[in-house]
């Protein structure tokens, strides 16, 4: 693999073992990927898929068992964490409780022996950027969760890292604050033009924020692509299942003879509730019985037990005139079918 000018981070065949020598577990398994300059890159996957380990390998908090990690073309794998020009926003924030906000933010520059006047100036600038003016003299214990989150971000950003690593950084916030911070993070990334690598298990968060997403599966990359590609063209059932709801039915029930998994998203099908009602497109139509329905405000989910015995979910914006146990038909949009290798 050749590192191009615009490649900020190149991970080449990196493997990391955990566990005992007799029973090693590959947390990261011969994994390679490239993160471009000024990119919002997300590592997505369930807990235990190796995404946090990969992030810690880049940060230098864990060491690779094999492979190399190129930052702007230079191998940083042998360097300890304190020698790497990358910074981390920890899941628990890890703010130093015995230091003020300003001292926390200045810590990285202080350790690098920067001039105190420069440190103060940089700290004030980053507090401005975070809209946290006037909080410099406070201690972390005097801040709310959202404010602590901002300080953790500021403490990392102030060092102008080549890559900012965010480890499940929003997971401790409540729903509303998380939504705000998602927008805030995007803004920061645009304004600072720093490459972000963001680790999350929340697919919605990943889809809404990322330029590209790597879906991880047992230490490997299941799929790497833009949010649109990942959502609409998942390459495997694993990826399709992980990103949103996906209905899978056997190729046979759709009248297809291919040896593939066929899936469709709930919003890519319509529910036909009246006898003789014509579907708007000429895709497959599956007969079944309404098993359950649940109202979610903007959409209603209809769970249908097909005649083949399989269960699928269909989403509709309207509350349809239908009751549980009624006969219904499911019309699938033909160009929205997802074909995955079995």
């Amino acid at each position, binding site marked *: 693999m050749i590192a191009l000018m615009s490649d900020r981070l190149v991970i080449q065949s990196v493997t990391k073992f955990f566990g005992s020598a007799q029973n090693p577990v590959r947390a990261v398994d011969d994994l390679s990927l490239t993160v471009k300059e000024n990119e919002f890159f997300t590592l997505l996957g369930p807990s235990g898929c190796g995404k946090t380990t990969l992030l810690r390998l880049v*940060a230098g908090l864990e060491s690779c068992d094999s492979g190399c990690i190129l930052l702007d073309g230079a191998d940083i794998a042998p360097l300890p964490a304190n020698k790497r020009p990358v910074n981390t926003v920890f899941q628990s924030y890890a703010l130093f409780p*015995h230091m003020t906000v300003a001292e926390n933010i200045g810590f990285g520059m202080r*350790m690098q022996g920067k001039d105190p006047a420069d440190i103060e100036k940089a700290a004030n600038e980053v507090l401005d950027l975070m809209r946290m003016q006037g909080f410099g003299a406070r201690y972390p214990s005097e801040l709310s969760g959202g404010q602590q989150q901002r300080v953790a971000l500021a403490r990392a950003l102030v*060092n102008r890292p080549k890559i900012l690593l965010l480890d499940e950084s929003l997971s401790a916030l409540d729903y509303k604050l998380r939504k705000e911070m998602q927008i805030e993070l995007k803004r920061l990334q645009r304004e600072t033009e720093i490459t972000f690598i963001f680790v999350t298990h929340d697919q919605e968060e990943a889809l809404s924020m990322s330029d590209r997403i790597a879906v991880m599966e047992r230490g490997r990359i299941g799929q790497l692509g833009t949010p649109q590609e990942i959502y609409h063209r998942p390459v495997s059932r694993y990826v399709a299942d992980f990103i949103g709801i996906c209905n899978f039915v056997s190729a046979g029930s759709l009248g297809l003879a291919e040896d593939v998994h066929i899936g469709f998203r709930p919003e890519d099908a319509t529910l036909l509730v009246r006898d003789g009602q014509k579907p708007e497109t000429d895709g497959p139509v599956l007969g079944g019985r309404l098993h359950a329905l649940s109202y979610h405000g903007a959409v209603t989910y209809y769970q249908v037990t097909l005649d083949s015995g399989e269960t699928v979910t269909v989403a509709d914006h309207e509350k349809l005139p239908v009751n549980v146990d009624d006969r219904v038909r499911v019309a699938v949009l033909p160009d929205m079918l997802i074909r995955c290798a079995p």
Partner: protein
Amino acid sequence: MSTQAKNMPGFGAITFLGIAFLYLPILAVIIFSFNSGRMITVWEGFSFDWYPRALGNSDLQRAAINSMIVAVGATTIGTVIALCAALALHGDGVPRPLKNASYTMMALPLLVPEIVIAVTTMAFFGALNLRLGLGNVLIAHVVFCIPFAYAPIRARITTIPKSMLEAAKDLYADEWQAFRHVTLPLLAPGIFSGALLAFITSLDDFIITLMVAPPGATTLPVEIYSKVKRGITPEINAAASMLLAVSIFIVLLSYVINRKKVI
């Protein structure tokens, strides 16, 4: 409330009596240190006279100075050793069997009867022909100060999240800087609390010092003991009260310091 089974009838009364039992002798010594007469248990009126007398007694003075030297020395050395041990045992650089052996060695001075430590140390110094005067006492004190200093440090160290040190390293701190700027300040209350406990343990030790101290190297408790053997006087009660007050003040201080949580 009393219908609840967790409130057993009589247990409150036993507790109050038990606490009274624990404090009765302490109060007796303090009260009779203010007795104006020479009779130690017959109250003849309030007087503050015995305190200046005790403070002016040259035997007690000499012993108190020895006590301070030993306690300060043993606390300093013991706390540094305990801190190093706590750091080593908390990390994963020490092999498991060595860790377990260390934990056992940490518990032994607390469990082995003091008289056994006293005579074995005395025999050991004799076998080595080690005659360092007050130095012998200091060495003996360092040994039993270590576990007392270790316990609060150990308790504290386990409350420091691992991510705190990782954050320091991520922010360009090397091993020493991370220790100096993050671990040490966060451990400080535990270290201070441990040092205080080691200090009063050393200050209060009697049996080990009695057996180990060569002539001229007696500490305050040993001096009090030999005076008690000759007959208790209000003057001794006054000296004892001051020693009790120092211990109580220090143990309370240790609690207050160590109460603040890391996060």
